[in-house]
């Protein structure tokens, strides 16, 4: 903490020094960025030429010109109390809603949302699919070698039927999972 505050102070001092040296002293008198308003001057002008013009303008539309500059920037008038802040942050619309569409998956028993697939079942299917794809990659050997025929996945103890003569066979050395129908 001490190092950070010291660093910040030294940064500030150095910046002020650089400003005072680079820019002439008359230009930037205030260190903070000043607000420049394009409106009528509230202080009386010294030049004689502009006196008549100013008087004409002020007589014709005095109230709007004076108020224009004040209403330009919106700013909070008072600090919002913690009670006001709490009622806004803890309003019923901002609280989280309790979900009533959660039910257990009939296959694995993990929880799932009614309109969404069960996450556990999905990951188990993903894993098996990744293993099949790895097998296919090993069979193909390189990229762009996919055969122009259908693929058939066979597990342990399964033989291809006469229909599957013109299909490429991917062997998986495990028992067929219950969810993968042949």
């Amino acid at each position: 903490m001490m190092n950070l505050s010291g660093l910040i102070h030294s940064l500030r001092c150095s910046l002020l020094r650089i400003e005072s040296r680079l820019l002439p002293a008359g230009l930037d008198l205030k260190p903070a960025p000043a607000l420049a308003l394009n409106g009528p001057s509230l202080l009386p002008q010294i030049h004689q030429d502009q006196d008549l013009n100013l008087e004409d303008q002020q007589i014709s539309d005095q109230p709007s010109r004076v108020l224009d500059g004040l209403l330009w920037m919106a700013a909070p008038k008072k600090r919002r109390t913690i009670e006001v802040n709490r009622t806004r942050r803890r309003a019923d619309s901002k609280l989280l809603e309790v979900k009533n569409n959660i039910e257990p998956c009939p296959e694995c028993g993990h929880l799932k949302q009614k309109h969404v697939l069960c996450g556990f079942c999905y990951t188990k299917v993903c894993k098996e699919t990744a293993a099949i794809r790895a097998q296919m990659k090993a069979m193909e050997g390189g990229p762009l070698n996919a055969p122009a025929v259908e693929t058939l996945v066979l597990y342990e103890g399964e033989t291809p039927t006469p229909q599957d003569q013109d299909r490429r066979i991917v062997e998986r050395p495990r028992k067929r999972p219950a969810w993968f129908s042949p």
Partner: protein
Amino acid sequence: MTGRGLSFIRNLPGLLHSRLQWGNTLQQLSCLHTSTSLESKNWEKMNRKVYPPQLPDEPRRPAVIHHSRRQIKYSKDKMWYLAKLIRGMSIDEAIAQLEFNDKKGAKIMKEVLLEAQEMAVKNHNVEYKSNLYVAESYTGKGKYLKRIRYHGRGMFGIMDKVYCHYFVKLVEGSPPKTEEKTSFDQAKEYVQSLKNRTIIHSL
């Protein structure tokens, strides 16, 4: 020995005693703030409280488990909404709600609840892990790290890297049912409270 000297000697222990008392009270007053510092982790210490064995005719005291996680990289205000969500729910319901919530704090809170459930079964003699409910759950501000945020014109701001703590108290048993008051009842109560206004200590 003069009477004054004797009376002084008689009063001496009294004076010393009063001086010592004042010194002790000063010490006690200074000790009041030594325990409540940032390093004290009182929530975890509450698990160590041991009650005397219950008498056979006393109603069974439900098991209470305090658990917390410190310095979670998340905002305490954002975490508060999740803590408010699961207040008063049974632990299974709470875990289900947190599992399907998309907020970052939900994953962390679910871990904390599962840890607390395991602690309850292992260390706090809880028979059924589902027979728990969330009695208290709230967040606290952790120690922030401060960084510089650069603005234009050489101005800078100090950015806070926020951390929070999360505290949860699980109690054995089914969650207590909060009776929902209808709006008409609430309005009636409000009107009654206005009617009950009176001047105290009047004639």
